[in-house]
């Protein structure tokens, strides 16, 4: 009966509380980090420890939207499922009508418009997710975008969302070096190091997906992540030793 009443209305001092509460929901979600390199884009997520009897293939926080774009989210998983599904359909629809794969910006704009619409519709609440969208356009340029429950989106060189996002972002700001982004390994290491700051028990709880130019998304398996983590730990030890001498 009262489904025609808007849920997201302005407060007297100009706030949209539902949107802000949605952002709180995002802050409770597990951390996701994204780094854009020159020829590679990387998304890493904190894998929440799952119950022993649960099949961990069903908990995927990194989703491919098309062969050239993929996304990681922080916040309400069920909301993300809806958004990801719409985005996947739009990617194919775009290919059908325009005969070209989507650009990363296009699909980000599409997702953001959906999110914004839900902050202005009758009887609907905003989506409780922020997402990091990465990929390559068909001309080979890499991109990293972040969307928020409010429906805004921005391009980033590296960013983090979810729990302790601020800490991770500060880490990225401190350690992001433009020259390092030429090397694929350095990009991956930066993402892992950033996640290790906030993830308990190290490499076991990290899921990492990479995409190199002209290749499809690859999810690194535990062995490869362990290799990077060991390399990072060795580098840390070296740095400590140097400090002492």
């Amino acid at each position, binding site marked *: 009966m009262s489904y025609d009443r808007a849920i997201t209305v302005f407060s007297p001092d100009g706030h949209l509380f539902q949107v802000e509460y949605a952002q709180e929901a995002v802050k409770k979600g597990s951390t996701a980090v994204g780094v854009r390199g020159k020829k590679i884009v990387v998304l890493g997520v904190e894998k929440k420890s799952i119950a022993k009897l649960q099949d961990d293939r069903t908990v995927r926080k990194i989703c*491919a*939207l*098309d062969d050239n774009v993929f996304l990681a989210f922080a916040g309400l998983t069920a909301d993300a499922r809806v958004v990801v*599904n719409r985005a*996947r*359909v739009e*990617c*194919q*629809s775009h*290919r*059908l009508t325009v005969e070209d794969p989507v650009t990363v910006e296009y699909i980000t704009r599409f997702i953001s418009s959906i999110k914004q619409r839900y902050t202005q519709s009758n009887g609907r609440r905003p989506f409780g997710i922020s997402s990091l969208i990465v990929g390559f356009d068909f001309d080979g340029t890499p991109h990293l975008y972040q969307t928020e429950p409010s429906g805004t989106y921005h391009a980033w060189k590296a960013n983090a969302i979810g729990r302790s996002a601020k800490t991770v972002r500060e880490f990225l700001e401190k350690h992001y070096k433009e020259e390092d982004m030429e090397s694929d390994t350095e990009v991956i290491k930066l993402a892992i190091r950033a996640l290790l700051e906030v993830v308990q028990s190290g490499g076991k709880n990290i899921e990492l997906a990479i995409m190199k130019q002209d290749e499809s998304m690859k999810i690194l398996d535990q062995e490869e992540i362990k290799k990077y983590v060991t390399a990072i730990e060795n580098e840390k030890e070296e740095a400590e030793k140097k400090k002492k001498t």
Partner: protein
Amino acid sequence: MEYLIGIQGPDFVLVAADNVAASSIIQMKQDQDKMFKLSDKILLLCVGEAGDTVQFAEYIQKNIQLYKMRNEHSLQQRYGNDLFPTPYHVNLLLAGFDETDGPGLYFMDYLSALAKAPFAAHGYGAYLTLSILDRYYRPDLTRDEAVELLKKCIEELNKRLIINLPSFSVRLIDKDGIHDLEKLVPVGAK
């Protein structure tokens, strides 16, 4: 006047389609490709109402891609059949190689009648060539024998059909994917 043919072997499917795109009595294009790649190992051959064919095939193509994105693995071949009557006036052959089921060839017409068959054809040419296939087809054909059988069918078309089909695209699907074979250009009728 359009023609499609498919022949299934023990570990491959051979398919061919004519290359003419016509408008009434005029050949508008002689290098039309009537085969649509639905996935690495599935081909959709599509003839019928001009426009409907491409629109329908591309729509199916993109939907299969969407399935792959959603489900992280490709659609199995036998589910690639769209089984309700649509306004599209298209006749199809669906040919592919499945990991578990092996090679498969499916015949579908515009009323969505569906049949899995060891060999199949669409078009007026089918009336002439199905009997040749009945006579010479064996389930254990080698790839070369299948191509020879295909050539026999196409020679017959050239002999008896009032409209000449100048060339045919030929493709073979096996466990390694889709392979383009040489275009078949039948020599003029005697």
